[in-house]
Protein backbone atom coordinates (compact mmCIF):
# COMPACT_ATOMS: atom_id res chain seq x y z
CA UNK A 1 0.00 0.00 0.00
CA UNK A 2 2.83 2.34 0.93
CA UNK A 3 4.57 1.64 -2.36
CA UNK A 4 1.45 2.16 -4.38
CA UNK A 5 0.85 5.49 -2.66
CA UNK A 6 4.44 6.48 -3.23
CA UNK A 7 4.31 5.54 -6.89
CA UNK A 8 1.07 7.42 -7.38
CA UNK A 9 2.43 10.52 -5.75
CA UNK A 10 5.61 10.43 -7.77
CA UNK A 11 3.85 9.97 -11.11
CA UNK A 12 1.37 12.66 -10.31
CA UNK A 13 3.94 15.14 -9.05
CA UNK A 14 6.24 14.92 -12.02
CA UNK A 15 9.10 17.34 -11.83
CA UNK A 16 8.99 18.08 -8.16
CA UNK A 17 9.84 16.21 -5.01
CA UNK A 18 7.15 16.58 -2.36
CA UNK A 19 8.68 18.16 0.71
CA UNK A 20 7.40 19.51 3.96
CA UNK A 21 10.71 21.19 4.52
CA UNK A 22 13.49 20.17 2.22
CA UNK A 23 14.23 17.01 4.28
CA UNK A 24 11.10 15.09 3.48
CA UNK A 25 10.77 12.56 0.72
CA UNK A 26 8.34 9.84 1.74
CA UNK A 27 4.64 10.77 1.60
CA UNK A 28 3.62 7.96 3.92
CA UNK A 29 6.09 9.14 6.56
CA UNK A 30 4.89 12.69 5.95
CA UNK A 31 1.27 11.70 6.43
CA UNK A 32 2.07 10.06 9.77
CA UNK A 33 4.18 13.03 10.76
CA UNK A 34 1.35 15.45 10.08
CA UNK A 35 -1.10 13.35 12.06
CA UNK A 36 1.23 13.23 15.05
CA UNK A 37 2.39 16.82 14.78
CA UNK A 38 -1.15 18.17 14.73
CA UNK A 39 -1.63 16.96 18.27
CA UNK A 40 1.68 18.40 19.49
CA UNK A 41 2.45 21.88 20.64
CA UNK A 42 5.03 24.21 19.15
CA UNK A 43 6.98 25.13 22.26
CA UNK A 44 8.32 28.43 21.07
CA UNK A 45 5.05 29.78 19.70
CA UNK A 46 2.24 31.25 21.75
CA UNK A 47 -0.32 28.68 20.70
CA UNK A 48 0.32 26.76 17.49
CA UNK A 49 0.67 23.13 16.59
CA UNK A 50 3.94 21.51 15.62
CA UNK A 51 2.42 20.72 12.22
CA UNK A 52 1.65 24.30 11.29
CA UNK A 53 4.52 26.22 12.86
CA UNK A 54 7.41 27.53 10.81
CA UNK A 55 9.62 28.15 13.85
CA UNK A 56 13.15 26.72 13.76
CA UNK A 57 12.64 24.48 16.77
CA UNK A 58 9.42 23.18 15.23
CA UNK A 59 11.27 22.26 12.05
CA UNK A 60 13.95 20.51 14.11
CA UNK A 61 11.39 18.55 16.07
CA UNK A 62 9.57 17.52 12.92
CA UNK A 63 12.92 16.32 11.59
CA UNK A 64 13.45 14.25 14.74
CA UNK A 65 9.99 12.76 14.49
CA UNK A 66 10.67 11.78 10.90
CA UNK A 67 13.82 9.99 12.04
CA UNK A 68 11.87 8.17 14.72
CA UNK A 69 9.12 7.14 12.30
CA UNK A 70 11.63 5.85 9.79
CA UNK A 71 13.32 3.89 12.58
CA UNK A 72 10.02 2.07 12.96
CA UNK A 73 8.85 3.54 16.22
CA UNK A 74 5.17 3.46 17.07
CA UNK A 75 3.11 6.60 17.68
CA UNK A 76 3.19 5.91 21.40
CA UNK A 77 6.98 5.69 21.38
CA UNK A 78 7.36 8.95 19.49
CA UNK A 79 5.10 10.69 21.97
CA UNK A 80 7.02 9.23 24.90
CA UNK A 81 10.25 10.41 23.31
CA UNK A 82 8.96 13.97 23.28
CA UNK A 83 7.32 13.99 26.70
CA UNK A 84 10.48 12.58 28.29
CA UNK A 85 12.25 15.72 27.09
CA UNK A 86 9.60 18.40 27.17
CA UNK A 87 6.98 17.16 29.60
CA UNK A 88 3.24 16.81 29.11
CA UNK A 89 3.08 20.45 28.05
CA UNK A 90 4.03 19.44 24.54
CA UNK A 91 0.84 17.38 24.12
CA UNK A 92 -2.26 19.09 22.85
CA UNK A 93 -4.22 15.94 23.63
CA UNK A 94 -3.91 15.70 27.41
CA UNK A 95 -3.06 12.16 28.53
CA UNK A 96 -5.71 10.32 30.45
CA UNK A 97 -4.31 10.04 33.96
CA UNK A 98 -5.55 10.89 37.45
CA UNK A 99 -4.61 14.53 36.99
CA UNK A 100 -6.85 14.78 33.93
CA UNK A 101 -9.74 12.51 34.89
CA UNK A 102 -11.80 15.57 35.76
CA UNK A 103 -10.98 17.09 32.40
CA UNK A 104 -11.92 14.11 30.27
CA UNK A 105 -14.88 12.94 32.34
CA UNK A 106 -16.17 16.40 33.14
CA UNK A 107 -18.24 16.83 29.98
CA UNK A 108 -19.83 13.45 30.58
CA UNK A 109 -20.68 14.50 34.10
CA UNK A 110 -22.19 17.77 32.84
CA UNK A 111 -24.29 15.82 30.40
CA UNK A 112 -25.36 13.40 33.11
CA UNK A 113 -26.42 16.17 35.46
CA UNK A 114 -28.27 17.86 32.63
CA UNK A 115 -30.06 14.65 31.74
CA UNK A 116 -31.17 14.19 35.32
CA UNK A 117 -32.42 17.76 35.47
CA UNK A 118 -34.25 17.32 32.19
CA UNK A 119 -35.82 14.13 33.34
CA UNK A 120 -37.06 15.62 36.58
CA UNK A 121 -38.42 18.77 34.98
CA UNK A 122 -39.88 17.46 31.78
CA UNK A 123 -40.33 13.74 31.59
CA UNK A 124 -41.99 13.11 34.92
CA UNK A 125 -44.31 16.04 35.23
CA UNK A 126 -47.45 15.74 33.15
CA UNK A 127 -48.90 18.90 31.71
CA UNK A 128 -51.62 20.59 33.69
CA UNK A 129 -55.07 20.32 32.28
CA UNK A 130 -58.25 21.68 33.77
CA UNK A 131 -59.69 19.22 36.25
CA UNK A 132 -62.65 17.13 35.08
CA UNK A 133 -66.09 17.86 36.54
CA UNK A 134 -65.95 14.65 38.62
CA UNK A 135 -62.74 15.64 40.27
CA UNK A 136 -64.00 19.11 40.92
CA UNK A 137 -67.05 17.65 42.65
CA UNK A 138 -64.81 15.39 44.75
CA UNK A 139 -62.69 18.31 45.75
CA UNK A 140 -65.70 20.34 46.81
CA UNK A 141 -67.00 17.51 48.91
CA UNK A 142 -63.64 17.13 50.61
CA UNK A 143 -63.53 20.79 51.40
CA UNK A 144 -67.04 20.73 52.81
CA UNK A 145 -66.19 17.73 54.94
CA UNK A 146 -63.22 19.55 56.40
CA UNK A 147 -64.87 22.88 56.96
CA UNK A 148 -68.62 22.43 57.29
Amino acid at each position, binding site marked *: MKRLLLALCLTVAAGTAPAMDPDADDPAVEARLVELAQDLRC*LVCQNESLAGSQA*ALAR*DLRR*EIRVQIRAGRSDREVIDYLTA*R*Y*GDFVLYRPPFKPLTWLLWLGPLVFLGIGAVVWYRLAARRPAESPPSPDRLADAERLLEDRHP
Partner: protein
Amino acid sequence: MKRWLPLAAFVLLAGFLAKGLFLNPSEVPSPLVDRAAPAFSLPLVGEPARSFGPEAMRGRVWLLNVWAPWCVSCRQEHPILMQIARENRVPIVGLNWKDDAGEAAALLARTGSPYVAVPDDRDGRVGIDYGVTGTPETYLIDRDGVIRLKHVGPITPAVWRERFEPHLKALGL
Protein backbone atom coordinates in the same frame (compact mmCIF):
# COMPACT_ATOMS: atom_id res chain seq x y z
CA MET B 1 -30.21 26.10 48.40
CA LYS B 2 -29.47 25.44 44.74
CA ARG B 3 -29.76 29.16 44.09
CA TRP B 4 -26.47 29.78 45.87
CA LEU B 5 -24.66 27.33 43.63
CA PRO B 6 -23.85 29.73 40.77
CA LEU B 7 -22.36 32.26 43.18
CA ALA B 8 -20.33 29.60 44.95
CA ALA B 9 -19.00 28.28 41.65
CA PHE B 10 -18.04 31.78 40.57
CA VAL B 11 -16.19 32.49 43.82
CA LEU B 12 -14.16 29.32 43.32
CA LEU B 13 -13.38 30.34 39.75
CA ALA B 14 -12.38 33.85 40.79
CA GLY B 15 -9.95 32.36 43.29
CA PHE B 16 -8.20 30.42 40.56
CA LEU B 17 -8.14 33.43 38.25
CA ALA B 18 -6.58 35.53 40.99
CA LYS B 19 -3.89 32.91 41.57
CA GLY B 20 -3.41 32.81 37.82
CA LEU B 21 -2.34 36.44 37.73
CA PHE B 22 0.78 35.46 39.60
CA LEU B 23 1.72 32.61 37.31
CA ASN B 24 3.42 32.59 33.97
CA PRO B 25 1.70 30.24 31.51
CA SER B 26 4.75 29.95 29.27
CA GLU B 27 7.18 28.90 31.97
CA VAL B 28 7.45 25.16 31.51
CA PRO B 29 9.14 22.94 34.11
CA SER B 30 11.60 20.38 32.84
CA PRO B 31 10.92 16.66 33.18
CA LEU B 32 14.67 16.10 33.27
CA VAL B 33 15.17 17.46 36.77
CA ASP B 34 16.39 14.75 39.14
CA ARG B 35 17.19 12.50 36.18
CA ALA B 36 20.52 11.58 34.66
CA ALA B 37 21.90 14.15 32.25
CA PRO B 38 21.57 12.66 28.73
CA ALA B 39 24.86 11.42 27.36
CA PHE B 40 26.39 12.90 24.22
CA SER B 41 29.67 13.29 22.45
CA LEU B 42 30.27 16.49 20.52
CA PRO B 43 33.33 18.05 18.91
CA LEU B 44 34.64 21.19 20.55
CA VAL B 45 34.37 24.61 18.99
CA GLY B 46 37.81 25.52 17.69
CA GLU B 47 39.21 22.01 18.25
CA PRO B 48 37.02 19.67 16.22
CA ALA B 49 39.42 16.77 16.74
CA ARG B 50 38.67 16.67 20.43
CA SER B 51 35.26 15.76 21.79
CA PHE B 52 33.34 16.32 24.98
CA GLY B 53 30.65 14.45 26.87
CA PRO B 54 29.04 14.84 30.30
CA GLU B 55 30.87 11.83 31.70
CA ALA B 56 34.04 13.94 31.56
CA MET B 57 32.60 16.00 34.43
CA ARG B 58 31.81 13.08 36.72
CA GLY B 59 32.79 13.75 40.30
CA ARG B 60 32.26 17.48 39.94
CA VAL B 61 29.31 19.76 40.29
CA TRP B 62 29.04 21.78 37.10
CA LEU B 63 26.87 24.02 34.94
CA LEU B 64 25.78 23.33 31.38
CA ASN B 65 25.00 26.70 29.81
CA VAL B 66 23.18 26.56 26.48
CA TRP B 67 24.00 29.67 24.45
CA ALA B 68 24.45 30.94 20.91
CA PRO B 69 26.45 33.77 19.30
CA TRP B 70 23.31 35.45 17.96
CA CYS B 71 21.59 35.44 21.34
CA VAL B 72 21.27 38.87 22.94
CA SER B 73 20.21 37.66 26.40
CA CYS B 74 23.31 35.47 26.48
CA ARG B 75 25.47 38.58 26.15
CA GLN B 76 23.57 40.03 29.10
CA GLU B 77 24.40 37.11 31.34
CA HIS B 78 27.98 36.88 30.09
CA PRO B 79 29.50 39.09 32.82
CA ILE B 80 27.79 37.04 35.52
CA LEU B 81 29.13 33.84 34.00
CA MET B 82 32.62 35.35 33.90
CA GLN B 83 32.27 36.16 37.59
CA ILE B 84 31.14 32.62 38.41
CA ALA B 85 34.06 31.22 36.41
CA ARG B 86 36.51 33.41 38.30
CA GLU B 87 35.23 32.14 41.66
CA ASN B 88 36.34 28.68 40.64
CA ARG B 89 33.54 26.93 42.50
CA VAL B 90 31.55 25.56 39.64
CA PRO B 91 32.99 24.97 36.17
CA ILE B 92 30.78 26.03 33.27
CA VAL B 93 30.46 24.16 30.01
CA GLY B 94 29.01 26.25 27.19
CA LEU B 95 26.94 24.32 24.62
CA ASN B 96 26.96 26.22 21.35
CA TRP B 97 23.39 25.69 20.14
CA LYS B 98 22.57 25.58 16.45
CA ASP B 99 25.09 28.11 15.21
CA ASP B 100 28.36 28.38 13.40
CA ALA B 101 31.42 27.26 15.38
CA GLY B 102 33.55 29.95 13.78
CA GLU B 103 31.20 32.69 14.98
CA ALA B 104 31.15 31.20 18.46
CA ALA B 105 34.94 31.05 18.65
CA ALA B 106 35.29 34.61 17.36
CA LEU B 107 32.80 35.95 19.88
CA LEU B 108 34.48 34.19 22.80
CA ALA B 109 37.88 35.43 21.68
CA ARG B 110 36.52 38.99 21.73
CA THR B 111 34.59 38.91 24.97
CA GLY B 112 36.50 36.31 26.95
CA SER B 113 35.24 32.83 27.74
CA PRO B 114 33.83 31.64 31.07
CA TYR B 115 33.74 28.09 29.73
CA VAL B 116 36.02 25.15 30.42
CA ALA B 117 34.76 23.54 27.23
CA VAL B 118 32.52 24.58 24.32
CA PRO B 119 30.87 21.57 22.65
CA ASP B 120 29.38 22.34 19.26
CA ASP B 121 25.71 21.29 18.85
CA ARG B 122 25.38 22.34 15.23
CA ASP B 123 22.13 20.57 14.37
CA GLY B 124 20.46 20.97 17.77
CA ARG B 125 20.13 17.22 18.44
CA VAL B 126 21.67 17.41 21.88
CA GLY B 127 19.49 20.43 22.61
CA ILE B 128 16.43 18.34 21.90
CA ASP B 129 17.68 15.60 24.23
CA TYR B 130 17.95 18.23 26.94
CA GLY B 131 14.54 19.75 26.19
CA VAL B 132 16.03 23.07 25.11
CA THR B 133 13.56 25.51 23.56
CA GLY B 134 15.69 28.63 23.38
CA THR B 135 18.74 30.39 24.76
CA PRO B 136 20.07 30.94 27.32
CA GLU B 137 19.18 27.94 29.44
CA THR B 138 21.38 26.61 32.22
CA TYR B 139 21.47 23.21 33.91
CA LEU B 140 23.05 22.48 37.28
CA ILE B 141 24.44 18.94 37.24
CA ASP B 142 25.82 17.14 40.30
CA ARG B 143 28.74 14.79 40.86
CA ASP B 144 26.77 11.73 39.77
CA GLY B 145 25.63 13.31 36.54
CA VAL B 146 22.07 14.05 37.74
CA ILE B 147 20.38 17.28 36.68
CA ARG B 148 19.38 19.18 39.80
CA LEU B 149 18.08 22.43 38.33
CA LYS B 150 17.15 23.94 35.01
CA HIS B 151 16.91 27.68 34.62
CA VAL B 152 15.35 29.24 31.54
CA GLY B 153 16.51 32.72 30.71
CA PRO B 154 19.59 34.75 31.60
CA ILE B 155 21.22 34.29 35.00
CA THR B 156 21.08 37.47 37.01
CA PRO B 157 22.63 38.03 40.43
CA ALA B 158 19.18 37.63 41.96
CA VAL B 159 18.55 34.38 40.09
CA TRP B 160 21.98 33.04 41.13
CA ARG B 161 21.31 33.89 44.74
CA GLU B 162 17.76 32.64 44.94
CA ARG B 163 17.79 29.60 42.69
CA PHE B 164 21.31 28.30 42.32
CA GLU B 165 22.95 29.04 45.68
CA PRO B 166 20.51 26.88 47.72
CA HIS B 167 21.27 23.89 45.50
CA LEU B 168 25.01 24.51 45.69
CA LYS B 169 24.86 24.67 49.46
CA ALA B 170 22.91 21.43 49.53
CA LEU B 171 25.63 19.86 47.43
CA GLY B 172 28.24 20.98 49.92
CA LEU B 173 29.67 23.95 48.01
